[in-house]
């Protein structure tokens, strides 16, 4: 009964329902417009919603996340420019379809299968997260320390071409998270005699700099690339077509959910794996893969939307983000005084079921907005980047300033923006930095608790790790 009443929170509360709808609508455009990313939007949004109640803030972010993952497919089909990394595989067959005048058909089928994939991911979240949380409840400090390390290392290894650069980025993030006074001993760390650093570096400023400013600076390189116009007709797909591709969609949704649930992976990897799966299991596609095969759209789009629900599983049960966006959402939950992890399900089960329900509603809104308003969409996507990028920069500056009313945060944002710009150019992944910042406290506190409980005996602590619950969880992960 409690579960049902918690599930109904965003449905009976009109304000929340509206925020989810607005978020999903905005997310579709954010995801679709090249140069805007969901990660960027959610990170900027945190700075504007930190003074809100937690439910409305999360409702808006969840809407943007869900809409954004789907929205990336639009420009992949119409312009051959994936609006988000998770839509890279969609462009392979979506754009050839558009070139043959089948853009409307491609958008229609993508919308419907995204909806199906999204629901499978959300169902898995509702069904399996409570079980995993029950398992994780007995974790000791050393287990949490291991989880923090695992989360950082996995993202380091999976979000870029170079493992060593990923590990460097994760370690840098932990270092940034350690700046300021040590909460246990009040000793200064990495302060260099600068009083402003004693309170630490604002997580939001780091995040906006890395994902907002650096992305905008990178986009400047191709700012004068002209927009391509497409004619769109026949959007709503027939039931027979959906039914024909449903078995493949169910398989790739499962792949998407599992891949999304692995810490450090996300919709992009899920979509590519699903595309590969579709190529292997589809014997005689009507159109060959790479030339406009519908199976080449069904597989990545079901998988990347299923990965959204999957990504919330480790975030809500273990406190480890499933991808970059959930990493930022963990930050949002911290800002609102919540502590994602196994205790969240016990102390605030309403929050868990609220997230499940909001995701489901965002998925429904995605279907509605996805099948309507295409003309408006085409106009907005054609908005020149010469106007869009300066606006993003203003929003980034305002966002960084607004959290603490501090110009120092704006300078940090700019500093991390420039650092992030060069790191992107030279092949360093940025997501591990943000994960490092978020997980720094978890790692530091639990390391010290664990080693103190073993009376500073490192060998005894390592032996304990081999008999811990977390080791089993790690085995499960591999």
């Amino acid at each position: 009964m409690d579960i049902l009443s918690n599930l109904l929170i965003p449905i009976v509360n009109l304000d929340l329902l509206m925020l989810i709808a607005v978020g999903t609508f905005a997310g579709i455009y954010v995801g679709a417009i090249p140069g805007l990313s969901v990660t960027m939007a959610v990170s900027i949004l945190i700075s504007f919603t930190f003074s809100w109640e937690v439910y409305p803030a999360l409702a808006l972010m969840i809407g943007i996340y869900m809409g954004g993952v789907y929205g990336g497919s639009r420009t992949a089909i119409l312009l051959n420019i994936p609006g988000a990394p998770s839509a890279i595989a969609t462009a392979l067959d979506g754009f050839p379809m558009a070139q043959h005048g089948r853009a409307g058909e491609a958008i229609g089928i993508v919308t419907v299968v995204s909806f199906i994939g999204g629901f499978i991911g959300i169902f898995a979240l509702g069904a399996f997260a409570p079980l995993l949380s029950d398992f994780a409840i007995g974790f000791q400090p050393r287990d949490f320390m291991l989880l923090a390390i695992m989360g950082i290392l996995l993202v380091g290894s999976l979000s870029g071409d170079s493992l060593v650069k990923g590990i460097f980025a994760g370690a840098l993030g932990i270092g940034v998270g350690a700046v300021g006074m040590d909460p246990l001993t009040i000793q200064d760390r990495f302060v260099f005699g600068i009083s402003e650093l004693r309170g630490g570096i604002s997580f939001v400023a780091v995040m906006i700099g890395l994902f907002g400013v650096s992305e905008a600076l990178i986009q400047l390189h191709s700012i004068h690339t002209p927009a391509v116009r497409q004619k769109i007709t026949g959007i709503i797909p027939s039931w027979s077509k959906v039914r024909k591709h449903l078995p493949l969609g169910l398989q790739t949704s499962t792949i998407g959910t599992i891949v999304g649930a692995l810490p450090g992976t996300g919709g992009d990897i899920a979509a590519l794996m699903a595309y590969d799966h579709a190529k292997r299991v589809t014997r005689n596609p009507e159109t060959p893969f790479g030339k406009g095969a519908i199976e080449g759209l069904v597989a990545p789009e079901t998988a990347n939307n299923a990965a959204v629900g999957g990504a919330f599983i480790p975030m809500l049960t273990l406190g480890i983000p499933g991808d970059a966006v959930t990493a930022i959402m963990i930050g949002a939950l911290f800002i609102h005084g919540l502590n994602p992890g196994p205790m969240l399900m016990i102390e605030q089960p309403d929050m868990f079921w609220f997230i499940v329900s909001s995701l489901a509603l965002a998925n429904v809104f995605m279907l509605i907005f996805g099948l309507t308003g295409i003309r408006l969409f085409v106009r907005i996507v054609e908005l020149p980047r010469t106007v869009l990028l300066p606006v993003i920069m203003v929003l980034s500056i305002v966002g960084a300033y607004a959290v603490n009313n501090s110009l120092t945060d704006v300078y940090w944002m700019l500093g991390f923006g420039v650092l992030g710009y060069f790191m992107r150019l030279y092949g360093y992944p940025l997501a591990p930095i943000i994960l490092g910042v978020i997980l720094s406290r978890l790692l530091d506190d639990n390391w010290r608790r664990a080693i103190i409980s073993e009376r500073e005996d490192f060998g005894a602590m390592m032996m304990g790790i081999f008999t811990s619950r977390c080791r089993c969880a790690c085995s499960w992960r591999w």
Partner: protein
Amino acid sequence: MEPTPKRRPGELVFNIAIMLASFGLLYSAYGISGFEALSAPGAVPMATTAIMVVCAVVILRQTLRKGADTSQTMAADILPLIVIVTIAMIAAYAVLLRPLGFLPTSVLFLLVMVRFLSRRGWGFCLAVSVGTVFVIWIIFRLIFAVLMPQGIIPEGRIVSAITSLF
């Protein structure tokens, strides 16, 4: 066989800077509590900065092994004028934000940036910047209640005048 990746302009300098910064941070982390105890406040910072140093050395070694990419230049592919001007403009925005206030600084920033990037007429740029700042102000100041520096425009009075209408 995949082609060997080439070293981009400035990559070597960047990676050397990263390595030197990592050594500096390791030294600073050592200064927190030295090797006092495994649970000391400097233990995790020392471990992480040591990892940074090791990784930075490996990255530098890998970079040195790559051949230079002669098809790219620093000015065209890494740090073009458009990026330098934009970074300078963001810094200028941050400096002027408090003395001038959010509204004039944002209009000025957008006016110059849109003009610089689009090369359109001043009228278009002014309309876009004023319109955009107005929308941002309505959304974030009035709806989200985000406080921004007031500067030379009595924003507080304008807001209270607007809210008194409802």
